[in-house]
Structures are given as C-alpha cells and as structure tokens.
C-alpha cells in the first residue's frame, strides 16, 4: 500500500476540515469526489506533506512523513499539483519544470531528459521555450501537471487537474492518468465525475470532512438505483444519492 490513512483529522481553528478519514490504497488511479468545502484539498495537502495532520496516522510509501528523513524521501517520490497553481511569469515552460525537477532532488544528469519527456507528455513540446506569462490558463495547468510528473513519482496528487482543459485535452489527460496509474498511486481530486468514471479504478466521496463512500465507480453508480437522486449521468446520480444518504444520516444523528 502506498497510502495508509487511519482516523486522520485536520483542524483549522474551530473548523474541522478532515474528520477521521481512514483509507488505504496502492497503485492505481484513485478519485476523490465531494462538494465544495468537503475537505478534499485539505486531505490532499496532508498527503502532499504540505500540512501535518492534527491527529491520526498517516503512512506514505511505507514511511512516516512526520519525521524529516522519511519525509524527504517521500518528497523525492512525490508529485503534487495544487488547486491554485502559482508560477513565475518570467520562466519558460522548460525552466519551470526543470526548476522543480532540481528541487525534487533528481540526479542532475537525468533532469534534461526527464523535463523534455514531461513537457512532451503534456503536449507542450512546441511551447517549451515560451514564457509562462504568454500561456493560456489551460496550458498553465498542463505545465503544472508536467512539473508534477517530471520525477516519475510513485505518489501523484492532483487537485483539479483538468480545470481549464478543453475536452480533447481532458481525454488525453485521462489516458495519461491510466498509464501513470499502472505503476504509481495517483489520487485525483475533482468535481468532474466523468473524469473519475473514465480514469479511476477506485473512488472516494467526502462530505463535511468525512469519507462517506469508498469503492469502485460501478459501486457508486449502483447506489443511485431505487432512488430519485438528481443527475444527468449514472455516476452523477450515484454521487447525489450517496451525499443525500450521508446528510440524512448526519441530520438524524444530530
């Protein structure tokens, strides 16, 4: 298992963003769904070692990220694309990806090849020398994906990776995810259920900081049977059904 989470919580002041999540996953593409404010980004940031958990147990790639040495080792094997990607407008595409390849402690000799491969894989080969300030929002997103995959990570965390991508690019991106998921654990946080359906072998649904569903996309779809859940696609209806059930359970408890 590359990711082992046990009763993980995270508080920001009085707000409990993640409330006791337990999860384990190995290689494959894992989708993380949920409404706004469900805690997906906070969970992803803990997995990315950006913030520590308030409580609970977390092991990534068989290591404890709470200790400096193992955390550094995890980060060598980690790729992370945040929801709001910051960038340096004066850098070129290649410079930006190279910069992060170097920060990820890749052997210097391998960097040029890895950078070129990553840039090609996201379809920005002809924009390699372009300054980031000249790129569209979708292209910037792809640059973000390139820096996340440049070091061929064993754990890849993507927060809204397809934001700004056109349909053709989303199709290509899903294929890329499937290919990456053959050997790495890829966790994709997204609002787009069709991305989950097309690329993910497992999916989890979060609501109000808690995990309310964990299974396959087929199992999620099946949850909508016999209900009047809203949605234009089977997966959307399953999503709505699970959320509705979780909220009614929570309301009954309170």
């Amino acid at each position, binding site marked *: 298992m590359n990711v082992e989470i046990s009763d993980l919580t995270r508080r920001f002041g009085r707000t409990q963003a993640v409330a006791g999540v337990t999860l384990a996953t190995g290689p494959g593409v894992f989708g993380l769904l949920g409404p706004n404010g469900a805690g997906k980004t906070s969970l992803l*940031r803990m997995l*990315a*070692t*950006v913030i520590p958990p308030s409580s609970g147990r977390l092991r990534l790639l068989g290591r404890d990220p709470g200790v*400096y*040495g193992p955390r*550094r*080792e995890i*980060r*060598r*094997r*980690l790729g*992370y694309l*945040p929801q*709001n*990607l*910051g*960038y*340096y407008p*004066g*850098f070129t595409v290649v*410079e930006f990806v*190279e*910069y*992060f390849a*170097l*920060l*990820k*402690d*890749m*052997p*210097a*000799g*391998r*960097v040029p*090849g890895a950078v070129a*491969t990553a840039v*090609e*894989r*996201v*379809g920005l080969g002809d924009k390699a020398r372009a300054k980031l300030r000249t790129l569209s929002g979708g292209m910037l997103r*792809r640059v973000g*994906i390139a*820096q996340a995959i440049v*070091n*061929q*990570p*064993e754990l890849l965390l993507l927060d809204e990776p397809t934001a700004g991508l056109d349909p053709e*690019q989303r199709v*290509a*991106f899903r*294929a*890329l995810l*499937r*290919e990456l998921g053959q*050997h*790495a654990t890829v966790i994709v946080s997204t609002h787009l259920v069709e991305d989950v359906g097309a690329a993910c072998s497992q999916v989890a649904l979060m609501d109000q900081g808690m995990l309310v569903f964990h299974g396959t996309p087929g199992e999620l779809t099946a949850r909508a049977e016999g209900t009047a859940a809203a949605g234009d696609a089977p997966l959307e209806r399953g999503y709505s059904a699970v959320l509705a059930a979780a909220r009614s359970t929570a309301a009954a408890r309170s």
Partner: protein
Amino acid sequence: MTAATDAPVRHGPPRAASTGPLTAARLLRIELRRNAMLWMLPLLAALFWFSTYRPSMALPPWWNLRGTLLQQQALLGFAPLMAGVAAWMGSREGRRGTADLVGVTALPRWAGQLATWAATTCWAMVAYLGGVAVVYGITARQATWGGPLGWPVAVGAAMVAASCALGFAAGTLVPSRFSAPLVAVTVFLALAAGAIAIEHNSTYAQIWPLNVQGALPPDTFGTFSPYLPDLAITQVLFLAGLAAAVLGALGLRAAGGRWLRCAAAVAAAAGLAAAGTGVGLAGTARPEAHGIVIPTLHDTANDKPIAYTPVCSQAAVPVCLHPAYRSLLPAVTAALDPLLSEVAGLPGAPVRVWQVASTHLQQRPHNGIELSGPVIGGSPPVVSLPLSGMALPGEGHTTAAEFIRQLRSQVPPMLLNTLIGGDQLDTNGQQGSRSARQPSPSVLAQQVIKAALAQVAGVPPDSGVPPLPPGSPADAAAKRFAALPAAARHAWLVDHLTRLRAGQITLGELP
C-alpha cells in the same frame, strides 16, 4: 498529452541521490537568468555613472581619491536599491503563491533560498565590480604613480553581499508589497545614521561601511605610506558576519533535518560572533596621520614610508612633489613662484619646497581633525608642504585658480613671517605698554615689507599678513616698495633683510 512515449519509461525515481554540485549549478543558472537584479543593471549603471564615475573623473587620477569614492558614493547609491531588489526576490514565493509547491520538494528549502540569494548577489556584484573595473581601468591609464587600492573595493563587495542578504531575508519573512521599499529606506536610514554617529565621535561607529579612514582626507592615505587595512578588515568582518548571521537565521526558520538546523545555527552564531568582533575591534580604533589604526590588527610594516622619487619644477627655488601629485606641479609652482623668486637667495630663505605627508595634529568636534600646515626649517632651510586636506581642483566646484588661492593663503604668510617677522609684540621690552593696533616703528617696517611682498605674490587678503590701514604712511610705503622693479626689491632685501628681521629698520629707512 500523450500516454505513451517513444522513450523507455523508467518507473519511480532512483534511490536517494544527494544534491551535488551539478544540481546546485543548474539551480543557480535558472535563478541567474530570471533574477530581477538583472533588470536593475541599467538603472544601477546609470546611478553609478552619475554619482560615482563623474565625480571620480573630475578629481585628479589618484588611487586613494577614486578608491574612496568607490566605497562611499557607489555604496550609497547601490546598497539600498540592491537591498530592495533582494527583498523583492525574497518575497517571490509569497507573491507568486508557490510556497506550497516549493515546500513539498525534497531539496531543503534553505538550499533553494540560498540559490536565489546567490543569484541576486551575483548580479549585484557584477554591477558593483563592473563599475569598479571601469573607474580603476581609466585611472590606470591616467595615474602617474601607485596602484589600485583593493580594500575599499573589498568593503564595497562585502556591503553588497550583506545588503542583499538583509533584503532577501526581510522579503522572505514578510512577503508584502511594502517589504522592498521599506528595506531600501531602512538601509538608506542606516547609512545616514552611521554618518551622524561618527559625527558624534562614537568610536564604534567607525565600523560604518561608508567610513574610509575616518575623518582623514582621502588624499592623505596610501601615498607616502601604505594604505592601512585595519579598519577595512573590521568592516569586512562585520559585513560578512552580518550576512552569515542573517542567512543562517533563514536556515533555522526553514524546515529541515537536525543536521541542517545545526549547520544553520552554526552559521548564524559564527556570523554574529564575527559581526560582534568587528564592532568590538572598531571600538579600539584610533586615527593616526596615515590612517586608522586598530592595535590588534595593525601591522607595523605598514607604518614605514614608501620610497619615491619626487618630481620637481625647474626654478630658482624648485618645488618638489610626490610623483602621485605630478598633475598639480604646475599649479603649485604657479602659486608659490612669485614669492619664491622674490626671496630666492636671501638669508634664511628656503632653497626648496618639499611636499611631505600630513601630520595629524588633533581631533576636532564632530569627527574632525586638524592637519599640520606648511613649516620651514632645517639647514639649509626647506619649506615642508603638506597638500593633504586641501580642496583639490575638480573637487566640488574647486577650480585651479581656487586651489592656487588656497596655497597662497597658507605658504607665503608662513614664509614671510619666518623671514621677516613682524607679527610679535614690540621687542624693546615694552610688551604690553603699547596697544596691539599701534606697532612700534621697527615692527611697522616689517609689516610694510611683508604687505608689499604679499601683494607681489598675490596673497589673498585676510590670509595672515596683517593689513595696513588704507591711506596710512605704512600703506603708501608698502605700495612704493611693491612698485619697485623686482631686481631693486631683491637688492634692497639682500642688503637690509638681516637688520629688518632684527627690528633695526624703521619706516623712514624704507625705499
């Protein structure tokens, strides 16, 4: 986007690879290419040309003058702006929202920050050392003696590194839009405060980076005796220590392993110790005639004068200057020749004017010092003339004529008082019995001859030669004597100077 590539995909990164020199070099290369200081180079070049190059070229081509400007003027223009740009670079992650992105990478954050700081400082050094190279390169072609002074440049370079470190750290800690201007203004204020502290005679303030050998005029040091590096060493120690302390503190703050934190703590502690040592040493500084001496660091070999062959004018009484002052020989000769040719060959008259190093007399309030003036002595008599501390042609609005005027207000009065006398009280033993405004007839005769020769020599009024009441018999006698042909004046002085000096000539015996 492509799911499959032609290149074989190697899955997972290789086993842990430590950051090597190649990684550091690559990081530095990226940072150098995209550093904001690079874009500031044209502005820095313009400011350098304006505040340092032009004033340098207006001064005589002396290494000590131009080296002083490179430490003072250049830093005053550069250091605050460089600190501001460094703060701008330090706040980059905060401004661009990349803190999370770079924070989850394997390379210790401190290493990444040091790469950014190093790139910023590299370009700042390029600007500063480029300006130094231009000024020193031109001086090398113009100078007639000596060589470039390295210590003012070393202090300047240390100040550049320290300014960038302070600015970078401030920008990293407070990535606000106000960081860069506040850092720049703070450095300006600190430089101004240092000047004020020195004016208040604070010895510890000698550490101030724009201080070059204290209150000694720049042309005093590095000519007759070697440039004393004592103060410069303490300044470099202080500035380098400051930079190390600040950068070490950054490392303490950045998340990292135990060894990394230890290294950062050691760097910070060593930096603080070095800076404190520098300040402490500066507190023991004392000004000497040839520079600031710090006893712990002083090498007595630097007190030995430098041998040189003087350059002399071809005149009855030659003026001999240090070869570094060759460019001033015509002006000094023009200033003194009118009087020297009058008194050449007279009893007690000097046979030569010889430039000497200044002798520090005493300290004045507000960090001032009084330097020795010209004196005549020896056998045969020689005028010892220190030129240090005078306003040189090209300095401010000083013209060659004003420089000559300065010389004529110093040397001829001293010479006339020595040769002829006439500024003491009545020598007939009636001291105090006469009013100072009514000299005795013999003293009056001395004053008449001095006034006449001063007029011939072009001595400015109020320069130490007592003025004669206009329209008085003494004034008329002075004018008559001055109107005589030079040969007649000289002949009279040959015959009568000894008696005149002894007070045995009265007004009625003057021609």
